[in-house]
Structure formats: C-alpha cells, structure tokens
C-alpha cells in the first residue's frame, strides 16, 4: 500500500525565512558541531588539497614532456613530487571529500537532526588541518621520497625527515577517519526514523555504512604500520631491516591490508552517489536495490582478502594463485552494481543534467578501470606490466574516473541543497566535456606506454615514448584547466544561481523534504520517508512529491533544465 505521507518538514513562514538564511562565511571557519557546516568544511578543504595535488600532477606532466630531466632539479626532487602528489590526493582529498558528502547528506537522508556524536564529528574534521600542515611541512623541510606507499627501505634508510612527518600526519588522518566512521555507523544504525528499515535506506547510506565498516576495521592496521615506521626512523628499531632481524615485506603486508580496502573507502561512496543520481535523473527505481546494498557489503568483505596482489612479484609462489582468485572474485559484486546501474537507466526518462553526465562518465570510465583491474589480477599479465604506466592508468581510471567523477556528480546533484541555488548547467556541461576528454586522453594512452614497457616513477625515459607522453601531458593540462571551470561555476552559482527550492530534482529521499539549505535542526518535525526511496514513476510517488512541493511552495522549485 502506498504511503502518501505529507512531509512534516514543512515550515512556518518565519521558520522558512530563517532556514533560507545561509550560514555566514565565518561559520565555516570556526568550530561547529552542525553536520552540514562540517560537511562543507570537509568539502572545501578537500577541494583545496585537490587543487594543490593537481598542480603537482601538472608539474609531473611538465617534467615528462621531454625524455630528459629538465624541470626538476634532480631525480630525488621528482620522487618527492610524486610522493606528495599521491599522499595529498589519497589522504587529503578523496577520503575527506567523501566525509564531506557523507556528513552533509547522510543525516538528512535518515531524517536525523544531526550525527550521533556531533562533537566527535567536529573533532574528526579539525584533526585534518594540523595533519595536512605536518605532511606539507615535511615536503618543504626534507621531503619523503618513497611514494605514497612508503615502502622500506626507501622510507627508512633513504627518505628525509619529511618521511617522519609524513607518518605522523598519516597517523592523525587515520584517527580522524576512524572517528568519522564510528560516527557514521552509529548514525546509520540508530538515527533512522522507525519507518525506514535497512531495506528502505537510501543507497548512499548503504555505501557509507560499508565504507565505514572498512575504515574502522582496516585503518588500525595502518596505525600499527606507521608506529613501526616511526620507531624504525626515530628510535633505532629494525622492524623493516633484514640486517637487524626485521623484514621489509612486513610493511607491505600490513600497509596493504589497510590500503587495498582503502581503495574501496575511496570508491564505495562514489558508487552510492551513482545509485542516487542515476535513479533520480532517469526517473526510475534502482534496479536490484537489495543486490546493490548487499554488493556494497560484499565489496567491503572481499576487499579484506585481496591485499597480497600488490605483492605478486615478491610473494611466495604458493600464495599467488589464492590472491589472484580473490582479486577476481571482487569483480562480481562490482559487476552487480554495473548491471544494476545500466538496468536503472535503461528505458528511463533520462535528464542529461551535469550531475547525470558525470554519473554516466563514471559508469563508462569505471568499467575500463574495472577491466584493467581484472587484467592486473591475472598473475602472468601483472608480472609483465608490474611497476609500469599500465598500473598508473588502472588506478587513475578507478580513483579519478571513478571517485572524482562521482564527486562532481555529487557536487552538481547536492549543490542546490547545500546552498539553496542551482548550478549553471551550461558551464556544467562544458566542465564535463573538458574533464571527460581531458581524462580519457591523459590516462587511456598510459595503458599503451605501460604495455610497451615504460616504467612508472621515473623522470627520464627512452625517446620512443615521447609522442605518447606529449599527448598525455597535453591532455593532462586540459584536465587541469577543467577544474577552474567548476570553481568559476561554484562561485558564480553561489551568488547568482537561480533559487533552487526544496526539491529541484523531485527526488524522493529525505534530504529533499526540507528547505534548501536546511535549517539548523534539518527538519521542523520528524519527516516521514516515502515507502521506497527510489519509487519513481508511480502515482503514489507523484502525489508524495506534489505534497512536498506544496509544503515548501514558499520557495518555488527550479526544475532541471529550466535554467
């Protein structure tokens, strides 16, 4: 039976006027326990780090324009450049960026007034700025040169003191991540309205739940590994030094036991975003909702059994095949999601909004990253392309083609809820074109140069690879330029975008059943979720959405494509 519940988030006139007052800039610069403020704090700071890490990527590509060492002063300087680039992008951009959307959206989707532990939430965020300062300081003092993976003995015997600061900063970021994840799990389990069973929960919440489970189980291993690294560097222990009875592979085992699941920390929320965006902008229910939710948990579980594929070339031979098999198995839950998304948009009334374009971009690029992942899972092929640009291409297809495209989809989708204004769609489409083709021509050719044998992490290469590298570098500059389009769009839309209204996309999840931006307590009263968060195309859902529009008619909703 359809439940046509009149949303209880409807406001009185005064309340609505208060709600429409956007937080002042100063609200974002100080301690706040409001999950929405914290979400924006995470988002803006993460994007700032994205720009810094991106600028470093541009320098890397500039260096690789010619086969000789001509931009960086030495090979060591190049080593420290790609080390800090990877560190920033993973620890300071992608992971905190998902905390941004999780913080802003998840409590709203659950109809909650805030996260379960608001103070802890703020504390988790405020650990990030000092951690970032420590990591970046290390780069300018005496930089780490061991890559973001920090393998000993490079990280113990050869890197400068910046490596110690790197480990300290990563420790703080890990603690922040654990705190945030505990908060998400408790919020998702305990703060849902009684009508919202787990099987009626939005898929972003499922994805954040799976991500958080990975984070709380895996991040402590990183803490253990970092503690040993610090002791080896400053206390004279030899955990990773064979000469002192230690074992260099010890780091790889523990580090990858965290860092491979961490790949899913970086991708799963994006998959949740995709389920939201594809369904809303196709006006169709998510195909195989339960399987999508369960596949998130499946990825979380299987993700813990694959870490040693990062050590194929150094692993005992008898362990290689089992890890090859588990790595291939993880393609199954991922494939379930892909088919679900295709089934979701199939026959839908697709609206090619910017959010939808980026979601479709994710879909097409992540397939390539997934397929190259399965290729790398195959032991013979992995050994052939080990430490080549093929690997660089693979993980950028997953982490940029996947995560960053999902970040942009999420930005265009929820910007109206965060700010109360729509983003400029034309600029969004231009941004998409530059990003998509810039990305494709940057990273797809890396498959080729990788298979031809170009090693990664080198500033000098054989001349035969120069045409490929110039194509890659030129495309990378286009990709870098695309970031400025979205920055311009955000600033322009924040001040001059059309008023969004409560529910501009006519979406069924609860974050749209309150004003944009939401008031401090999110909802004037406990909202009642619709029976199916993705039940588009039914009379009942139409009536529910009309009731929402009517309840919030004070701010006229702007329809997609109407601006």
């Amino acid at each position, binding site marked *: 039976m359809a439940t046509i519940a009149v949303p209880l988030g409807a406001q009185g006139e005064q309340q609505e006027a208060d709600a429409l007052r956007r937080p002042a800039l100063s609200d974002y610069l100080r301690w706040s326990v409001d999950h929405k403020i914290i979400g924006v704090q995470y988002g803006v700071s993460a994007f700032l780090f994205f720009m810094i890490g991106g600028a470093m990527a541009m320098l890397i590509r500039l260096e690789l324009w010619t086969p000789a060492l001509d931009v960086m002063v030495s090979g060591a300087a190049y080593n420290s450049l790609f080390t800090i680039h990877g560190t920033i992008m993973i620890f300071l951009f992608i992971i905190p960026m998902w905390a941004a959307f999780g913080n802003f959206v998840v409590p709203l989707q659950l109809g909650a007034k805030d996260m379960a532990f608001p103070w802890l939430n703020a504390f988790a965020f405020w650990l990030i700025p000092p951690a970032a300062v420590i990591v970046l300081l290390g780069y300018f003092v005496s930089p780490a040169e061991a890559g973001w993976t920090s393998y000993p003995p490079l990280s113990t015997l050869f890197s400068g003191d910046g490596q110690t600061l790197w480990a300290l900063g990563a420790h703080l970021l890990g603690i922040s991540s654990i705190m945030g994840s505990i908060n998400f799990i408790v919020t998702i389990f305990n703060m849902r*309205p009684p009508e919202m069973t787990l099987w009626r929960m939005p898929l972003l919440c499922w994805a954040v739940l799976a991500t958080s489970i990975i984070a709380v189980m895996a991040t402590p291993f990183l803490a253990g590994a970092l503690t040993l690294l610090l002791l080896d560097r400053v206390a004279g222990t030899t955990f990773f030094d064979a000469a002192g009875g230690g074992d260099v592979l010890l780091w790889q085992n523990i580090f990858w036991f965290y860092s491979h699941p961490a790949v899913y920390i970086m991708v799963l929320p994006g998959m949740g975003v995709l389920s939201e965006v594809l369904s809303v902008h196709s006006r169709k229910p998510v195909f195989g909702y339960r399987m999508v939710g369960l596949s998130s948990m499946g990825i979380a579980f299987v993700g813990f059994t694959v870490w040693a594929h990062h050590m194929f070339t150094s692993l005992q031979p008898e362990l290689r095949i089992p890890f090859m098999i588990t790595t291939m198995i993880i393609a199954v839950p991922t494939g379930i999601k892909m088919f679900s998304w295709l089934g979701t948009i199939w026959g839908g009334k697709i609206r090619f909004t910017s959010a939808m374009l980026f979601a479709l971009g994710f879909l097409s690029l992540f397939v390539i990253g997934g397929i190259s992942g399965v290729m790398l899972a195959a032991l013979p092929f992995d050994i052939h392309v080990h430490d080549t640009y093929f690997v660089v291409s693979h993980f950028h297809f997953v982490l940029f083609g996947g995560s960053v495209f999902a970040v942009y989809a999420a930005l265009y989708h929820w910007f109206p809820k965060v700010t109360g204004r729509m983003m400029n769609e034309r600029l969004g489409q231009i941004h998409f074109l530059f990003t998509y083709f810039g990305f494709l021509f940057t990273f797809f050719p890396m498959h080729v140069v990788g298979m031809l044998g170009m090693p990664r992490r080198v500033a000098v290469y054989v001349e035969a690879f120069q045409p490929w590298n110039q194509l890659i570098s030129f495309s990378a500059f286009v990709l870098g330029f695309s970031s400025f389009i979205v920055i311009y769009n955000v600033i322009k839309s924040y001040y001059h975008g059309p008023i969004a209204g409560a529910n501009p996309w006519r979406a069924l999840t609860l974050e749209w059943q309150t004003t944009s931006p939401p008031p401090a307590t999110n909802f004037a009263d406990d909202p009642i979720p619709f029976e199916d968060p993705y039940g588009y195309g039914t009379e009942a859902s139409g009536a529910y959405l009309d009731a929402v529009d009517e309840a919030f008619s004070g701010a006229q909703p702007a329809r997609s494509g109407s601006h």
Partner: protein
Amino acid sequence: MTTIIDQQGKPKLGAADLRLKNNRLGMTIFQISWIMVFLALIIVNWQLRFSYSQWPPAGVAPFDPLLPSAATLALLLSSVLVRRGLQTLRRNHLGGFLMRWRGAMVLGLAFMAIIVYEFASVSDAAMATQYGVTMRLMTGFHFVHALAILAIMARVYRGGAAGSYSGDERHSWPVEGTAKLWYFVTLAWLMFYVVLYWIR
C-alpha cells in the same frame, strides 16, 4: 526506559535513551576497531618469527611466564571487580560500587607494576633480536592504554565519590563506558600474553 510515540504510532526512543544507545554502539565499534591495532602487532610478532630459524632465537633465553601470569591474574580479577562494581551501582549501592572500583584500580596498578618490571628486565641478548624488541613494543603499547584507562577509572571514582552517578543506566554511562574500556585492556592483554609467553 521512556518512549514517545511518533505520528505513525511506532515507539521511538527519548533523547537520553538514544544517547545511551548511541554511546553503547559507538563503544562497541571502537573496541572492535582498536583491537585491530593489537591484532596488527601480533601479526608483526608472528611474521618476524620467520626471520629466525627458531623462536626465541638461538642464544636467547625464553621469557619466564611466572610473573606475567600473576599480572594476568591480577588484571582478570580487576576486570571482575569492575563488572561487580557496575552491577552494584545499578542496584543504587554507591558505597559497594566505590569499594569494588577501588579494588579494581589497585589490582590494575599491581598489573602495571609487574609489566614495568618485565619490560625493564628484558636481557641485552633478547634486545639484540626481534624477540626482545617485539616484546617491549607490545607490552609498551599495551601499557600506554592501561595507564590511560586507569586514569579514566580514577576520574570516574572521583565522580562516584562526589555522587555523580546513580543506578539509572542513563546516568551512569561514564562508569559503564570505562568498565568496557577496562575489559578491552584485559582482552588485549590476554591476546598478547598468550602470544608472548606461551606460543613458541
């Protein structure tokens, strides 16, 4: 437990009950999460054993488990007292709670004193190998946790002496939470104790 009824007639927790429910689940998740660090150190110990042909390495005397066993017994008894103290508080018997809590702290201190002695007694021969180094790493790491949580227990004791807690579980979360942290310290030590002193 008080409840309010929402618009659809389903029971919904009051704010204090929800806070308690959140605290309990949050603590459980924290414990599951943080025990992983201890598990990671056990894996470190395990993997480093394979750097040697025998464990303990040749020329290094194995650690005597006698004193650590006494420390383990003290810690277990301390945990039992913490549990009994919490149960006593639930019955609104503040004096009984304080007495048991005090006993738990004394036993906790005894445990820590023995561990400090063990830490300091590692021979130079052992310290020249990963056998001694991992022992100090693990006991030292555990000691820091035990010390921090014992300090929290002392703080809770002061709160109890000032009458801050009652038998109502919603008003005694600091006691319950601290007790759960002490169980955590006990469980973590039991894992280390078996690995360090009994598995050769």
